[in-house]
């Protein structure tokens, strides 16, 4: 177990290093920001002077090592459009994104797991058929359009809820519905198909033959074994959400990481973009590790020795 943990942490470090390298090359391809920093009428001499002062004339290797050593000290440079550093800006947006992501995932699971289990248990029933249609729609409707339609209905027509922003409970409702529609559909489909697989196995037949009640068979025996795939999907989706629900945050003017990154891209504020991207890669890699460790708790058959 200890050996496994050390190996996984080493892998995590390698992924972080790869992500840093990828970010460096993206920055390199995006071009240097000198032109953006200087006024429109800057002369060639001024541009050349600034390039030299900021180190863009050095060789790619020198630039790379300087970038990595600064990054390891938590220095990703200054935002080109805001007074803060890129790291400060990204950190300031994390609470909003975290709030939205966690609530969306919890609500999605609360909606999806019962639907998936009931659909599987009563396969072919009217409930199952309605659930299938709803989940197929939930996955086909583009999130940003659903968001706009919700604003149109609840904010513009009925005037019940705000069109966007953050602060009060009311601000949360529409973004959460938008995110839940998609994620709950995905979780429910997955829960249904894994529970169906499990229900066909011998040990479930045994549990039934022992005379256990159907709900006990479903929730104690079947769902427990379906939980591995649900946890895997959960880890992946949470990673995506923590990376900023880019589109949902933009539609609802939610001041999170996703919206910050879209705005920074439109403003070509690349230091902020790449800091955000690096942060996301970090979160994703850590979540992968966390998911693998949670397996140990859920499934006694898995061991990493």
């Amino acid at each position, binding site marked *: 177990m200890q050996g496994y943990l050390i190996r996984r942490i080493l892998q995590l470090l390698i*992924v972080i290093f*790869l*992500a840093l390298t*990828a970010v460096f090359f*993206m920055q390199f*391809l*995006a071009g240097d920001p000198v032109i953006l920093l200087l006024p429109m009428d800057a002369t060639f001499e001024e541009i050349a002077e600034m390039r030299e002062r900021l180190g863009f004339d050095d060789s790619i290797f020198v630039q790379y090592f300087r970038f990595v050593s600064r990054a390891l000290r938590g220095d990703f440079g200054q935002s080109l459009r805001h007074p803060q550093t890129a790291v400060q800006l990204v950190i300031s947006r994390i609470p909003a994104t975290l709030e939205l992501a966690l609530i969306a995932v919890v609500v999605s699971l609360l909606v999806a797991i019962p639907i998936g289990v009931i659909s599987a248990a009563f396969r072919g029933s009217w409930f199952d058929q309605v659930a299938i249609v709803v989940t*197929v*729609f939930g*996955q*086909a*409707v*583009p999130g*940003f*359009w659903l968001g*706009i*339609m919700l*604003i*149109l209905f609840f904010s*513009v*027509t009925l005037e019940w809820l705000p*069109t966007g922003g953050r602060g009060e409970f009311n601000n949360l409702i529409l973004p959460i519905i938008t995110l839940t529609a998609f994620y709950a559909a995905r979780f429910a489909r997955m829960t249904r*198909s894994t529970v*169906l697989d499990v229900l066909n196995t011998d040990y479930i037949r045994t549990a039934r033959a022992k005379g256990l009640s159907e709900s006990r068979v479903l929730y104690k025996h079947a769902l427990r074994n379906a939980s591995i795939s649900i946890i895997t999907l959960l880890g992946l989706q949470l*990673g*995506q959400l923590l*990376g*900023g629900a*880019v*589109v949902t945050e*933009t*539609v609802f003017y939610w001041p999170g990481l*996703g919206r910050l*990154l*879209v705005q920074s*891209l*439109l403003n*070509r504020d690349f230091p902020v*973009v790449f800091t955000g*991207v690096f942060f*996301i*890669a970090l979160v*994703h*890699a850590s979540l*992968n590790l966390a998911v693998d460790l949670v397996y140990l708790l859920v499934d006694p058959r898995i061991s990493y020795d």
Partner: protein
Amino acid sequence: MIGFFIVLLVILSSIFAPLIAPADPNQANRPNRLQPPGTPGHIFGTDQHGRDLFSRVVFGSRISIFVGLVTVIIAGTIGTVVGLFSGYFGKWLDSVIMRLVDVWLSFPFILLALIINAILGMGLRNVVITLIITGWVIFARLVRGEVLALKNLDYIQAAKALGQSELKVIFFHILPNVFTPIIIISSLQISQIIIAEATISFLGFGVQPPTAAWGNMLSDGRNFLFNAWWMATFPGLALAFTALGLNLFGDWLRDTLDPKISK
């Protein structure tokens, strides 16, 4: 089967757009702006420049279908070739490619697409390039998995024992057997790609106005939510309808072509 008819309808309307659309999608008519649906000559109403919304929705299907098809064909081909080599030759090649795929998939797809698009610059061609760069990995991973399952089967061993070259084994014996999953995943990927293009254009990257694309029409529509509900409604309906058709078609293909994985 419903999926098939929806897809057919969208493809036909993109081919025959000039015949179906009653007006030129870019013909501005200022006095006629923001007319509601049902106005004579404008069943979907008009937009902020007085352009006929129905014509714009019909012409918008061209962008979506074009981006969807071209991207899937090119990304699918690249991904398939990479997956074939990665799975067949294994060893270090496979490790390197699969780590690359892992890193690629660890960024939120839409964010990666936005960054690439911001670096390449906007416009239709660059959206297609962006989506190819982000899209090939899914195919590579799928094909690689299939190849791993196939390559130790007797008929492949037999072909090798008969002295066929590696390339011949890969392209004549393995490739035909991974075709079915590739076709299935392609039809499902097209809907993802079409939504991705609309999302990118909606956020202000990608296809730029005045070209009629569903994504940038929705972006316009969002700015006029309080006085012209139709501008955000109809392009989005068209997009959701197309995505739904493609998903249903993909599910149907999977159930029909591959009884193993249908449930």
